[in-house]
């Protein structure tokens, strides 16, 4: 059974038909990437999965269970966490408090502590800065924090919305390394990116989204050599 199964969803913002029948699956242990240009509907797809936006048609299933009846906060309890677009850390809370908020859905103090250790191991920088106010972190540190916060929910499925946005190439590389590492430790990842080349280099499979529709779907390797992708998203002719 797939970790995540999105079947033919249609989502709207008022009258705007933002998703026109999207289907995708993410198997357990995979990194799947969703690439596409501005306004293609990538963020909307993630919002439809987390329940902030309810699709008018179609199904979203987590390990076979229909998510439609659940409210956004309940879906977190089901094991889905998100690193939102633009990071959106709690700017006025300290790093530790941010991480603490990430574990809001959990009860076991010892498990939370273990996960905190894990996050600090993954991002030692966060440990150094744990008393600093979130808003004063650099862009790269904020991305680490947003990722760490999502990990504190101990998700089985991690949704990431453009983690490379606005970061210097060196930082992008290190963030993507961390994503691979998180995945190796057993978290399934759905990665939304505009930086198609980087995303395809760490993903197992990829979907290409254009104006609310999936136009291509293949293994990451195949997509990297695909003509359309190369032209449209990799800037290679």
């Amino acid at each position, binding site marked *: 059974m797939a970790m995540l199964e999105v079947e033919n969803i249609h989502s709207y913002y008022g009258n705007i038909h933002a998703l026109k029948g999207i289907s995708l699956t993410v198997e357990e242990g995979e990194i799947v990437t969703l690439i596409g240009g501005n306004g293609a509907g990538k963020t909307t797809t993630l919002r439809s999965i987390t329940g902030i936006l309810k699709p008018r048609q179609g199904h979203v299933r987590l390990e076979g269970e229909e998510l439609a009846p659940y409210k956004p*906060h309940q879906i977190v309890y089901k094991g889905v966490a998100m690193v*939102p677009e633009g990071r959106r850390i709690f700017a006025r809370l300290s790093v530790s408090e941010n991480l603490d908020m990430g574990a809001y859905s959990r009860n076991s103090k010892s498990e939370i502590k273990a996960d905190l250790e894990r996050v600090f191991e993954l991002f030692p920088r966060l440990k150094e800065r744990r008393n600093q106010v979130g808003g004063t972190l650099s862009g790269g540190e904020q991305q680490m924090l947003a990722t760490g916060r999502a990990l504190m929910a101990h998700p089985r499925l991690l949704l990431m919305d453009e983690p490379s946005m606005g970061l210097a190439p060196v930082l992008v590389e290190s963030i993507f390394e961390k994503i691979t590492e998180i995945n190796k430790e057993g978290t399934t990842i759905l990665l939304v990116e505009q930086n198609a080349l980087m995303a395809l280099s760490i993903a197992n499979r990829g979907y290409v989204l254009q104006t609310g529709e999936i136009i291509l779907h293949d293994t990451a390797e195949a997509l990297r050599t695909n003509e359309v992708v190369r032209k449209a998203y990799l800037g290679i002719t």
Partner: protein
Amino acid sequence: MNVRLASREGLLTGFINLCCILLGLTGLAGTMVGGWFHLSSRQPGAWLLLLGIAVWGGVRAVRRVPDPSRNKTLIAGLVAGVMHGLTLAVSLWLISTLLDAGAEVRKWLVQLTPEAIRLLTFGLSPVAAAALMFVVMTTAGLVGALWVRASERYPWQRTLSKGPTTVRTRFLALPAVQNFMQRKHSQQILWGGGLLILLFFPFVLGQYWNYTLGTVGIYVILGLGLNIVVGFAGLLDLGYVAFFAIGAYIVAILTAPAPHGIMMNFWLVVPIGIVLAALAGVLLGIPVLRMRGDYLAIVTLGFGEIIRILSKSDALTDFTGGPRGIRSVGGPGLFGFDVSSEFYFMYIIILGIVLAAYVTLHLQQSRVGRAWMAMREDEDVAQAVGIYTLQYKLLAFATGAALAGFSGVIFASRNKFTGPEDFTLLVSINVLCLVIIGGMGSIPGVVAGALVLKGLPEILRQLADYRMLAFGALLILMMIVRPEGLWPSTRRQMELHERAEQSGEPDAGSSPETGP
């Protein structure tokens, strides 16, 4: 170069001083200070203001000096003082000469009465008065310069502006205090001691102060409630008065002989008022809390007005007494004794504050408080970490409403009356102001804010017509000097200062008391 800047400061502040004289503010200061200290003369107050502005001019001039070596500071102060003195001396000479010549200066400048002039001249001749003014103002400029130097050596000025906070930290650092705090039941002892002192208060205060401070106390409870809604949960509610009104009308309807004659026992009505107000909070909350920010503010504002207008509408006159309100609202009794005087109400109010503060503190430190904090910061992300925001918003709304209802019950019962004009928009605004002035999200801040907002107008009573003007000016001044509020929560203080000190070391704001 510096001389020019310094003389400009001197001229500017001299002009301000002159304006104060011409507008009668100097005389007003005399009246006020005279009233406070029961002096027969207005001179001390008037000169206090005059000198204060001159000293300020000296301070400003010195601040302009880029390299404050000893001599340069003094020169700057001197220059400012001279210019300030010249401005005033010349004007004073001119005015008194004109007056002596019989000119009708008062046609344009109503405040320039002979008495007002005598305040400044001590009855001397124009030239002598001008000379005196010059000498005194020059000295004042120098004093300003010395003041800056002194305050640089001993940073007490900073202590003053960070006042309460610094005093508290210093106090907590005392060895004796530290020892005490480490004892087992220190918290309980402190609370108990504080409560005991509070219980003695009503004995010491006269009827007038029991009434005035009782009003302050009612606003403290209101403030604690709104603090939950605005300070903790970040929901801007401008119709908070509605729940206050609901509490007041419930006690009125259930205990007054007319229009219904139910005449229930006051103590039974208290829980009814609290529960119904909380219920109203939830009922209003369900449709309204899906809105955000400014929309929420406007809708709640509308709700507040609707409740007031309903209470005085013709349709409901039989039920609420209409525009004339309800009289003879019942007061509390205890074992057959009537305990509804201001004196006894003070106890009820103190008890109410203690309970409200306890509930607030408890909520703040629990999981609920954490959820509110996340929501206030970013509602979407709060949802994304698993917080059911609607539920916590409703909880904030209901708790706030319950406290407002409670204070409404006390308010109407203490006044033995309730009517629609007690519940205007101004009440909501006042409560919001006191929460902000005290320091959003801070429990002691609410107490400080209520004391200032409701207590200060009492102290300023002698100012009569100028009372609200002075009050407004003081509020503005307070927000400039202490934007984080009088007694901010450690968190909020950190938030505001972090912006100023962003470039500081990475561990800024990591004081041990920071945690929630």
